[in-house]
């Protein structure tokens, strides 16, 4: 497979990840050593925060990472922190995130209250947590609030907490709800301190979520390494979608103390696609490569949302150029072809339909 011309420039990669179910592609690639076939050894480095992922990518302490789609674009635009030219060589998963509310609020909604009415019953602004200011969870939460007639900047108090702390904060009454990844909803529900009220796939069906992230100069300096890493992770994503038993194995590996450190029973059901909501779509890692193509139109959506919420004021005419520079479509195509993964028919523009009837690209 490795002719000298395409051999990775770096044989050993340090990959950052955060303790979440959707770190599965990295954990599978490492556990089954999918990298070896592509000339790579992988070292997984768990990070306790997204800020840590960002800083270690920027200073070269890690080479690439499992990252929120929005984190990459936040750094690219320099929102609230350092700016750097970033790259998204591939998407790692779709769906699989959710919004959980305190049992009291969830009960009101279940008995017919609108979200707005339920929050009004608190007689104070609800405190809602997400995971990073420019991250996907912030954007799903804000979108969902707005679609329910609330102004996320004025009507709620929006804070960030580490996902493992969400359940305790709900239990202590410091929090009324949160938007994050799994298994932290399953954990909150198992403790009886919160109930899942909406999956993010009910906001934007099949939304992109985590991506492989690295600095853009990493891609330019080590193109063969980046392609080898994309091939490796594509094989891991394919493996995850191949057979439900594979996902059951992955749930056990994810449960390990040095990965997520919660019981496999809290990880497996939703990883295996059991949502319990008729209109929710399960987490997906591959779907014949449909998940993984780094579509520029998806990247542009995040820039448009930052503008919507006053986080970014750059000229909208530049958005397409920015997304084209971040999302590594040409490199992805090469890597996908090398491992027999199809390029989706809607690669260039995927039309997304949202819960409020909006269509993207608009």
């Amino acid at each position: 497979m490795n002719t000298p011309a395409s051999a990775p420039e770096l044989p050993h990669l340090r990959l950052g990840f955060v303790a979440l179910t959707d770190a599965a592609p990295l954990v599978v690639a490492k556990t089954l050593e999918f990298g070896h076939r592509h000339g790579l050894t992988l070292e997984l480095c768990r990070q306790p925060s997204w800020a840590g992922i960002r800083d270690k990518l920027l200073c070269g302490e890690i080479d690439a990472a499992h990252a929120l789609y929005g984190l990459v674009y936040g750094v690219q635009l320099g929102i609230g922190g350092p700016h750097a030219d970033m790259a998204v060589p591939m998407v790692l998963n779709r769906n699989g995130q959710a919004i959980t509310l305190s049992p009291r609020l969830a009960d009101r909604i279940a008995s017919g209250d609108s979200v707005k009415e339920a929050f009004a019953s608190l007689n104070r602004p609800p405190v809602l947590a997400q995971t990073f200011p420019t991250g996907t969870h912030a954007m799903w939460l804000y979108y969902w609030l707005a679609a329910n007639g609330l102004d996320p900047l004025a009507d709620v108090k929006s804070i960030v907490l580490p996902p493992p702390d969400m359940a305790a904060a709900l239990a202590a009454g410091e929090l009324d709800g949160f938007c994050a990844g799994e298994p932290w909803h399953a954990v909150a529900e198992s403790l009886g301190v919160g109930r899942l009220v909406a999956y993010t796939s009910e906001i934007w069906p099949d939304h992109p979520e985590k991506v492989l992230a690295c600095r853009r100069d990493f891609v330019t300096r080590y193109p063969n390494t980046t392609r080898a890493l994309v091939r490796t992770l594509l094989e891991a994503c394919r493996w995850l979608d191949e057979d439900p038993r594979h996902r059951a194995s992955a749930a056990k590996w994810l449960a390990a103390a040095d990965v997520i450190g919660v019981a496999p029973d809290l990880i497996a059901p939703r990883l295996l696609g059991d949502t319990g909501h008729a209109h929710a779509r399960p987490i997906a890692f591959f779907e014949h490569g449909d998940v993984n193509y780094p579509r520029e139109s998806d990247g542009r959506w995040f820039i448009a949302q930052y503008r919507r919420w006053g986080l970014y004021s750059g000229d909208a005419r530049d958005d397409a150029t920015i997304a084209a520079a971040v999302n590594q479509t040409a490199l992805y195509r090469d890597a996908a072809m090398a491992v027999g993964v199809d390029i989706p028919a809607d690669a260039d523009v995927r039309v997304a339909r949202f819960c409020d009837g909006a269509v993207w690209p608009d």
Partner: protein
Amino acid sequence: MTSSPTRLRVLLVTDTAKPIGELRDALARLGYEMLTEVATPGALPRIVDEQRPDVVIIDTDSPSRDTLEQLAVMNEHAPRPVLMFSNDTDQQRIRDAVRAGVSAYLVEGLDAARLAPILEVALARFSHEAQLRKRLAHAETELANRKLIDQAKRLLMERRGLPEQDAYALLRRHAMDHGMKIVEVARQLVRLADL
């Protein structure tokens, strides 16, 4: 440095094993005003709001980092992560800070020269040599693991007459069926082959 209007207000976040709190006395001696320490992410929004620190020193690996990032974006008075990655900061200092495990956040517009002693105290306290050694050792282990898997694969190829891919698939299946890492399966196989 001691007249109160110009004294910088420094907040230490002490929610990891790294003893950030140890900086307290050294920085106080340099004339900084040391605020009540914060030990949980949940307490951070209120303290930043009430005490308005000019500088926040936090372990690079603190779980409270993202909480602080949100404050930086949503609240114009909150400290921002600009010191480590500002335009004029040299890369070596950034690397040193990250490897030493210290992140600094500060209110925009502060004079960098006034902050230098804070970082110097932090960097001196938390040397990064131990971490570099650990990293090197880890890379060596990874390469050794890879050699072990190759060896196990060759064993299977020779003894069972399998092509390389099948030998690898067999190792992988065994790992899955037994909930083991593939390298552990390889180690067992190689060890038993010596009997």
